[in-house]
């Protein structure tokens, strides 16, 4: 998918503004109790304003208050529409790739290609076979059953380099909306019409399938409860006021009620959720459910495959350790020669290192014959002039080949390498062992720092590897993971996840192979690689389109940011109430007890202005916080106590102080404009 913003911001705002009005439909409002109540109160005050207007009893302030109550609802709708709009723009661009096309359907996996019948892509059903040639669009999700092809998946992943898809193995999954670049494939359809990955993705980014996440539900309950409590507060205020010898105009009670109930968080709650999913989509991760995103924030343990996540996929030459009487240069030259025909990444890395050591001194000897690696000899190398044989290989293989036992210094070096988690590779010339090449797993740069960040966030990392315990321990120590699982089998992995869960921990892992599927399904957060098998993608609850295992860390961050944004705005919203009391109560009670003017700490100019200013502030604060809700509260990995302290200071204390300033400022403007 193209990563450019498809919709111009201006049209985005215009659409959102239009939708904020259509979202006034009671059916839609009912989903959000706080907003629904606000709308009812707004309707009620509007009736009162009309009555005043008809009766000719002024009511300028009443009209303004009811106007601002409607604006409060509209602002909240606008926030939600804006959050949805950003996803919609992306969904539209996706939809163009999912249009109906003609496809070639085969009767079976091995049917003659010529026998293909041309049908519409909408007619494809699960289990049918489709032939795709170079240039064809893959119409829906499937699993390759014959052929091998390079596929451009940029429509889904944004990555323009084509990837290989072939029948059998872990690269058999094909995704609807991608294009065959060369060769051909026959694939079996694995998705019913309208249920393909692309369809799911469109639904998700559009927010159509969005269901409230567990924390969001709990928060909604609390907000509804608070609304009910404030209803008690406001309704009982009239009898108390009457007892005290004053009567409060109903419109003022309505204003007090709306400013007290948590409209700020109530109005922004769904926008925060939608924006959170959108951030994941931007990171090229598709969440199958909102629950998984939220769970990502709760993760206690990350299971990470060593290969590809912590280390580069391959071992690399790290040093030449010559034996006694041999110079490093001579060893490097021999290693260089022995690796000339070795196309493996290890071989290339040896040549690279040797070239760096030798500089201009690379050997200029004619190579007579290349000896390729074979499973029997477990050696590779070259034969050069004068019948000299140069070989490299595993320790026992070279010992057997040369018939020479390594000397003690060499043995010491070999043991050191093995202990550090590396692989020793001996180099020999004829019957002499020249020395050892240190091959090691190279830890990806920056990985150590990321694990330190995770540790600070309270997330433990466990490295999963098929290596022996000694090697695993060495790499684990170097990468800075908290724990490791050596000689891990899929069963052991599953067992480990269950074990952690039994201790009350939430586990996240990523995987791509079919044998990862049970573990992916068992994990609380299972991230499947898009390049993986359909089984893995089915089992995971998140899919990483970039197939980048380190993405798990970003997913955790997005999950945490989502929760923090909600908590911060809730705290802010409730803390705001203190100032609103100080603005509105003295205004309401001035008639009963003039002495209560001492509560008017903001020095607001008149009761009407005080109430109007509080209502206006209450509406404007929603707009002011929309960017924060959409962007998410800034999150830098830190311990929970540091996060709590900082966020409480910003959103708790800030929430107490800001409205005092804001309401005072609005009061000055209201006064200057003579609105009340």
């Amino acid at each position: 998918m193209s990563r450019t913003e498809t919709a111009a911001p201006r049209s985005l705002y215009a659409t959102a503004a239009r939708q904020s009005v259509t979202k006034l439909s009671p059916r839609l409002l009912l989903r959000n109790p706080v907003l629904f109540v606000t709308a009812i109160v707004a309707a009620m005050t509007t009736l009162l304003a009309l009555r005043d207007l008809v009766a000719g009893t002024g009511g300028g302030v009443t009209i303004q208050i009811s106007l601002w109550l409607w604006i409060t609802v509209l602002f909240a709708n606008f926030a939600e529409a804006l959050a949805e709009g950003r996803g919609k723009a992306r969904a539209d661009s996706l939809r163009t790739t999912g249009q109906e096309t003609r496809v070639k359907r085969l009767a079976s996996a091995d049917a003659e290609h010529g026998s293909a019948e041309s049908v519409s892509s909408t007619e494809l059903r699960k289990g049918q076979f489709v032939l795709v040639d170079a240039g064809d669009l893959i119409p829906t999700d499937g699993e390759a059953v014959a052929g091998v092809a390079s596929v451009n998946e940029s429509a889904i992943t944004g990555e323009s380099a084509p990837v290989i898809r072939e029948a059998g193995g872990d690269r058999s999954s094909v995704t609807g909306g991608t294009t065959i670049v060369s060769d051909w494939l026959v694939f079996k359809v694995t998705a019913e019409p309208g249920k393909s990955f692309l369809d799911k993705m469109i639904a998700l980014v559009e927010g159509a399938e969005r269901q409230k996440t567990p924390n969001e539900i709990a928060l909604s309950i609390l907000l509804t409860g608070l609304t009910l409590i404030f209803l008690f507060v406001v309704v009982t205020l009239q009898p108390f006021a009457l007892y005290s010898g004053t009567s409060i105009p109903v419109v003022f009670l309505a204003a007090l009620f709306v400013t007290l109930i948590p409209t700020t968080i109530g109005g922004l709650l769904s926008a925060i959720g939608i924006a959170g999913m959108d951030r994941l989509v931007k990171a090229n991760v598709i969440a199958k459910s909102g629950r998984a995103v939220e769970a990502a924030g709760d993760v206690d343990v990350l299971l990470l495959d060593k290969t590809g996540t912590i280390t580069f996929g391959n071992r690399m030459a790290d040093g030449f350790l010559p034996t006694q009487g041999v110079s490093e240069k001579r060893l490097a030259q021999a290693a260089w020669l022995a690796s000339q025909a070795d196309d493996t990444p290890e071989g290339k890395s040896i040549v690279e290192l040797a070239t760096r050591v030798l500089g201009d001194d690379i050997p200029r000897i004619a190579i007579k014959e290349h000896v390729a690696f074979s499973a029997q000899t477990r050696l590779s190398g070259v034969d050069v002039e004068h019948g000299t044989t140069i070989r490299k290989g595993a320790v026992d293989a070279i010992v057997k080949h040369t018939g020479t036992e390594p000397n003690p210094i060499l043995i010491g070096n070999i043991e050191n390498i093995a202990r550090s988690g590396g692989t020793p590779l001996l180099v020999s010339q004829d019957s002499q062992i020249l020395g050892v090449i240190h091959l090691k797993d190279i830890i990806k740069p920056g990985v150590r720092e990321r694990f330190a960040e995770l540790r600070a966030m309270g997330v433990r990392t466990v490295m999963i590897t098929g290596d022996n315990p000694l090697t695993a321990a060495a790499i684990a120590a170097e990468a800075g993971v908290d724990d490791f699982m050596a000689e891990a089998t899929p069963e052991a992995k599953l067992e480990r996840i269950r074990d952690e869960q039994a201790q009350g921990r939430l586990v996240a892992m990523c995987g791509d192979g079919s044998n990862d599927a049970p573990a992916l399904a068992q994990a609380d957060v299972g991230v499947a690689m898009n390049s993986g098998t359909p089984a893995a993608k089915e089992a995971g609850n998140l899919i990483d389109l970039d197939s980048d295992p380190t993405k798990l860390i970003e997913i955790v961050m997005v999950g945490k940011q989502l929760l923090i944004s909600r908590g911060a705005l809730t705290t802010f919203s409730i803390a705001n109430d203190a100032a609103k009391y100080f603005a509105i109560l003295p205004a309401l009670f001035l008639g009963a007890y003039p002495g209560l003017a001492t509560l008017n700490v903001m020095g607001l100019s008149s009761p009407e202005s005080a109430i109007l200013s509080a209502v206006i502030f209450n509406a404007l604060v929603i707009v002011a916080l929309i960017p924060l809700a959409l962007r998410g509260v800034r999150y830098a990995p830190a311990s929970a106590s540091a996060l709590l302290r900082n966020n409480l200071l910003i959103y708790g204390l800030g929430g107490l102080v800001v409205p005092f300033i804001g309401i005072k400022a609005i009061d000055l403007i209201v006064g200057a404009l003579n609105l009340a």
Partner: protein
Amino acid sequence: MTPDLASVLLYLVVLVVLAVPLGHFMARLYRGERTLLTPVLAPVETAIYSIAGIRAEESQSWRAYAFAVLAFNAAGFVFLYAMLRLQGFLPWNPAGLAPMAPDLAFNTAVSFVTNTNWQAYSGEVQLSYFSQMVGLTVQNFVSAATGMAVAVAVIRGFACRGEGRLGNFWTDLTRSVLYVLLPLATIGALILVGQGVVQTLSSHVTATTMEGTEQVIAQGPAASQIAIKQLGTNGGGFFGVNSAHPFENPTVLSNMLQGLYILLIPVAFCFTFGRMVGDRRQGIAIFAAMATMFVAGLAVVAWSEAAGNPMISQIAGTAGPNLEGKEMRFGATLSALWGTATTAASNGSVNAMHDSFMPLSGLVFLVNMMIGEVIFGGVGAGLYGMLLYVVLAVFLAGLMVGRTPEYLGKKIEAKEVSLAVLAFLSMPLGILVFAALSVAVPQALAAVQDAGPHGLSEVLYAYGSTTGNNGSAFAGFGAADPFHTTLQGIAMLLGRYAIIVPMLGIAGALAVKVPAAPTAGSFPTHGPLFVVLLIVTVVILGGLTFFPALALGPLAEQVSLAAGTRF
């Protein structure tokens, strides 16, 4: 240091010194471990179980536990109601008192079963010795023990490792009475008798005063009831004027002892909590939050009483502390200390008339009750009430650490939040809605003695006290009207069971969760930051709800007083 300040400090220090070991003792007791008293009392305990057919080892689900609580209390109510209605036919009625009226008997029975001990009656003129000793004193023990048992069950819900069981109500009840309340009440009663508190079954004494008029001097078995009235945060006095009566609280030493007994078990429960959840810091954090609010309230009351009433000072031509409605043997400061403690602890006994305190002091008393009696609170009830705020505080702010909020390793999710909100609704419902009804219904309004904001304070106090299960009264309020006896009976039931049942539900929901070990990423619920958060939550959620009503009551009275306005 002034003697007043010294005695307050001494009180606080002695309180904590006694509460810490008691808290640890209770933790061992409720975990079924061996305690100091086990050798003496274990045979009695076993005998009780075998007679009553209690299977002590059987741990109950939250539903079974809640059912046992409700059933036991319902039986207690029926028994007490019948006794009050039939006291004319029952023994130990030397004064020949008549049966209590139905609405008053309902109010009284609810009051004692819910550990409120609101007294719409006057003990010496309406209750026989039998009703006092067998009816009220028994409920003084078992209603307190009920609160303690519920608190223990709730703690188990937070502490357990996923077993899903909350313990056995009958065992917790028996142990609370046998090992905690009875021994401490016995010691207390003996000391009080030593200080001159009466304890007799003889009838009233008639004396001729110096003016030559006849005066009936009430007496009776007071000491035995007073020790438990303080210890179990009951507060229902033997005499109408409660611990201001010289037979009920004769000396400064008896005053000190009773004051200590008011807060002893509630404070100890903080430490019991810490022990039982396996992290003493958690208990200390809750204690710190409660203690901070207590001292802040006490400071306001002591200051405003010491400053005195400006209008009286003006008339008298000299400034002095506010001594109206206070016993001279206690003075302003010790009365302030008692008033703060008794309203904080949901005790409700008084040694001075709360109606006569300064408006700001009245405000503190009201706030103590309105926030749900969680500043130490009733025995057991204070702790589970505070845990309700903990759940809300953790949920509100807990999201800000980027995880699903959790407390003691257990996630606070939709179910817990729903139940917490449900429980939380009972205070505004019982106080605001019922008080609003009282001022809106003309018949009910007649009960209010004073005009102006003080009258509203009286109404708010009456419903704050009953919903909060406190039981103390602003003296001006005529509570004996059937409208109020009935509505307040409902308020007391609401304040007790509409919190107990949801809290047990929360405990049940948490009990099935396996706690996760704390990590750097989990919400830290000990230390100063959490203490501040908890206090702010109590003040904002509890306080903001009642702020408008308080503004029209004590706050309006305070500003009017300053302005010299009378009503």
